[in-house]
């Protein structure tokens, strides 16, 4: 089975349109199991209730933002080793630096192509196929 098909991915973003774009990109890359959450709180709840190997999370979200979610994930031993990729805007260099301090595995600058999505995921998991 290709690597991508074995990875369960959680997409966390408050915009349904962006979740759809990320999901369709993941499907192109061979991902078969994706879950979605509206914000960091819902994302954390899902992570504590089902096996997730990869989180792709936006930063700007209500309730719990992407950085808060990252910190919470790294603070919960059962899920603290989950791969975490942060979605950022072009002007978010400070955010990327803070996310690196909190243990983010990679970041993805919007708008991004499927090729870039693949590149960022493969930097964490190795070749997907």
């Amino acid at each position, binding site marked *: 089975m290709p690597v991508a098909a074995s990875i369960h991915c959680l997409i966390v973003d408050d915009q349904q*349109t962006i979740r759809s774009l990320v999901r369709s990109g993941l499907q192109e890359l061979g991902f078969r199991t994706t879950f979605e959450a509206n914000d960091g709180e819902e994302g954390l709840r899902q992570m504590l209730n089902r096996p997730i190997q990869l989180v792709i999370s936006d930063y*700007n979200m209500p309730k719990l933002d992407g950085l808060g979610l990252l910190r919470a994930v790294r603070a919960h031993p059962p899920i603290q080793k989950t791969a975490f990729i942060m979605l950022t805007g072009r002007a978010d260099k400070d955010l990327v630096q803070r996310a690196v301090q909190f243990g983010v595995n990679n970041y993805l600058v919007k708008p991004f*192509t499927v090729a870039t999505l693949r590149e960022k995921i493969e930097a964490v998991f190795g070749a997907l196929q």
Partner: protein
Amino acid sequence: MSQAATASTPAWEPDRGIAVELRKAHVIQGEFLVSDDPELVMTTILGSCVAACMRDPVAGVGGMNHFLLPGVSGSEGLRYGVQSMELLMNALLRRGARRERLEVKLFGGGRLITGLTDVGSQNAAFAEQFVRDEGLAHAGGSLRGDRARRIQYWPVNGRARQVFLAAAESKVFAADRRRPAAPPPEDSGALELF
């Protein structure tokens, strides 16, 4: 995408019967702007591009973007529009707006040149779909048609004014889109208020 700059221009305000210092900000393609200044009017000129005018009436903050999908099919093309809408929404949320209170007026998406791919209609369809998918309140506007239009938007009270450019000016505008931005042409055509 960057934020637009503002400039002050003396203007006649018929509602007040006095001349006031009207602050204007022109939003060009690829830019967005948000403000809580009730005296500021945001302007743009649209051909096949679309501008989303978005505000939170309770927080008293609003903004405008101006985008054009690159004509690439599927998600590769949509991502530019999504990015533009997200930047505008996030800037509003940072200024105190609440997502569930946002109301949106959509303008543009015209087809200025017949015979070519109807990029304007694609832009309009994307904007409408985005508003539906995100559950935002669609408060009106004016999409499609065959004329360029000049838009003025007051971000705090949500008032929008559209002036269609004359057919000849629309063609000139369409031809000029590949050149550097020029000053807005004089008004002509019908006036519509929203």
